[in-house]
């Protein structure tokens, strides 16, 4: 297979950047999207050009490192799939493929397709945890947790923190990411103790990072590789409302 790639190239954070065209030749249908880029990069290096910088690590869809907007869709548009698990057989021979980085003020581009998602870490640092120290915890079976609640918490906890939700949202909102973490912990009895503080701290940090607001378009849910539900955003809003009411009375 052969493709024409239009790729965002940007030397560093201060560079303005531009789309550049490359030819991807002799691509095999069984290659993953990132392997296709590997091949293109090998060709660039052979020509003495700098390869296209892009983030990836586990390449099995769980680490959340890869972060490409492919033909205008975060992770390329295959449901529940990260870019690293997307394979070239889903593209048409001869197609032009546009590749861009996540675009959001809170995710500045570091180089080419690599962005800085430290904002997500700072949101978790603000309250995305249960305040227990190592040791001194009760026996694991001391607090029963209903299977339904526990499964729901796991649904939210499945988030891989890739940032596709932000990339796809027309407002670059991080609500799905934050809601997933808040819900994971607020749903569990262990996490309920500090649930008000958690939701307010995390939302405050999210706002400070310069993400946009949720306008309930549902794009985030549609591109999420772990198919995290929009319902968690409603749940977080409720938790925030309760915290606001409690703080105001």
């Amino acid at each position, binding site marked *: 297979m052969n493709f024409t790639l239009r790729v965002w190239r940007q030397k560093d954070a201060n560079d303005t950047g531009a789309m550049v065209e490359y030819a991807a030749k002799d691509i095999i249908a069984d290659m993953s999207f990132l392997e296709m880029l590997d091949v293109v990069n*090998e060709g660039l290096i052979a020509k003495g050009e*700098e390869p296209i910088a892009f983030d990836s690590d586990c390449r099995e869809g769980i680490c959340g490192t890869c972060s490409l907007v492919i033909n205008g869709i975060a992770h390329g548009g295959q449901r529940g799939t990260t870019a690293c698990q997307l394979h070239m057989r889903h593209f048409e021979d001869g197609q032009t493929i546009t590749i861009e980085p996540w675009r959001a003020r809170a995710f500045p581009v570091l*180089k080419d397709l690599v962005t800085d998602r430290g904002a997500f870490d700072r949101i978790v640092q603000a309250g995305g945890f249960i305040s227990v*120290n190592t040791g001194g915890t009760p026996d694991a079976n001391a607090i029963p947790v209903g299977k339904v609640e526990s499964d729901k918490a796991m649904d939210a906890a499945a988030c891989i923190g890739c940032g596709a939700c932000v990339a796809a949202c027309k407002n670059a909102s991080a609500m799905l990411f934050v809601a997933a973490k808040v819900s994971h912990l607020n749903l569990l009895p262990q996490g309920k103790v500090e649930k008000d503080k958690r939701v307010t701290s995390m939302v405050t940090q999210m706002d400070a990072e310069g993400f946009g607001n949720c306008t309930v378009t549902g794009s985030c849910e549609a591109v999420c590789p772990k198919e995290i539900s929009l319902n968690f955003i409603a749940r977080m809003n409720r938790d925030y409302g309760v915290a606001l009411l409690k703080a105001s009375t």
Partner: protein
Amino acid sequence: MKLDAKIPPGPLAQKWEKHKFDMKLVNPANKRKFDVIVVGSGLAGASAAATMAELGYKVKCFCFQDSPRRAHSIAAQGGINAAKNYQNDGDSVYRLFYDTIKGGDFRAREANVYRLAQVSVNIIDQCVAQGVPFAREYGGLLTNRSFGGAQVSRTFYARGQTGQQLLLGAYQALSRQIGNGNVKMYPRTEMLDVVVIDGHAKGIIVRDLVTGEISAHAGDAVVLATGGYGNVFYLSTNAKGCNVTATWRAYKKGAAFANPCYTQIHPTCIPVSGEHQSKLTLMSESLRNDGRVWVPKKKGDTRPPDQIPEEERDYFLERKYPSFGNLAPRDISSRAAKEVCDEGRGVGPGGLGVYLDFKEAIKRLGLETVKERYANLFDMYEKITGENAYETPMRIYPAVHYTMGGTWVDYNLMSSVPGLFVLGEANFSDHGANRLGASALMQGLADGYFILPYTIGNYFASEKQPKSDVNHPEFKLALDNVKALTKRLLSINGKRTVSSFHRELGKIMWEKCGMARTAASLKEALTRIPELRAEFWKNVKVTGENASLNQELEAAGRVADFLEFAELLCLDALTREESCGGHFRVEHQFPDGEAKRDDEHFAFVSAWEYQGPSKPPLLHKEPLVYEEVHMSTRSYK
């Protein structure tokens, strides 16, 4: 160098308790005076950094990923073992200890393993308190499954994402400490050297992967939790970024490297589809519960599987191991698959694959039941191969998955360089020659949450070292060396890409030092690796510059280290004239193909000491003494 494992005296079951009491403590008010450097933010690194910060130490934590949450612990699927005996099926600390020792083919330290089994219990409590959503019963209590052939159900799991959930638990604890200022986190920062002053680890040299700035960080102790070296084979189930650089550079600074030849191969991975392949993907071994493994009887049979009649199929595992059949242990099934492929009977592109057929299971159980059990795995398989495994058999092939060897550490997890501690997969300590399923997560967290935080205090309290200072000439020297190395890599400007060297190295390692090793193949590898290394330093092309994000430069440094490390791995494999666990020497097997251990001559840990660039490393033998268990030979016939 004299290796002392520092195993505490006394009966096995009381060693750790007694040791905890005997160790010196650091006064709570003094803890903030100690700076600890943690490299790596996986299960071991994140849990250690968080716990030490909670205790009051000043911690700096480094990782090369863009966030500590992305460390490769995240990819572990199956579960985590713990001797909770919640299922009332006869599990105990002693049983987990025994299974681990036996699973490790009697090449691990009794005392370490016993301690691991003891603290496994606390890990589950800790994780649940942190909010790890382990699977539960309707009654609200935790559920367990049996894993990797264990006869008790002691594995805790969170769907197929146990590693992810445990890592997020540790990441959350770490984030809490970053948020309150007790840990300073350095993401996208790679450790490139350890600084040793007067025989003690006193800091590290790092490169900021975004700006290229190379800087020194001083600490009163350095903790490496940098994972395994599976990527020396190029293709493995490890993440692309996994590397041996941290432990290898520590080795060159005096930290002995132990048992590098113990590498674990996983039988059920998705086969290589071509030269471009960048990594291999593991599928849960549970598939073998219902799938039947076969290849055509005829060599080079290219017919599609559904056109090969029953009588022309060879169900080789069922044939060779009638009592275990398709469930034969990992190394045995892996080797059997390799053998049939070597005979030219492999299937799929390149003939490197065997069928895992569900046709009979679907007939027996119904499509719905098979879907219920394995739908996520079948989906994953289809995503990668584009084939529907409900209709046509899956193709599987073994792949490198985990490395048991690592930096030698004593009972306190301290390497042969005082003040340098090594945790998790990066050390060698607990799995012997082979690791049980669902035990890697357990070991990483045991080291980080419950062992290092105690033993590091003992080091501080008893050593009374002077404060480390980045202005010391040793720091300057190390800094200059790293800068020079970086410059050298960028200035070669040859013709071959970094990954082409890595791929070639991987091929040598996989073919000559993979599932089955011979003296001849290892000797061949030992001549080819130095040749390849020499070519690398003459002909590699590293594009770009140092002062920016340069992924080629990062990869070049890692491959350069793999090219050196590979030689040690092969040397260790050549020296160990026996077969045990993940190390199989073709010369040492029973007539039926079973691994033949040599307890009389090889019941020791091989710890290799670096002697300088042009000298062969020096082998130290730490004898393995079994007081509690009797060394037995396994049989899966």
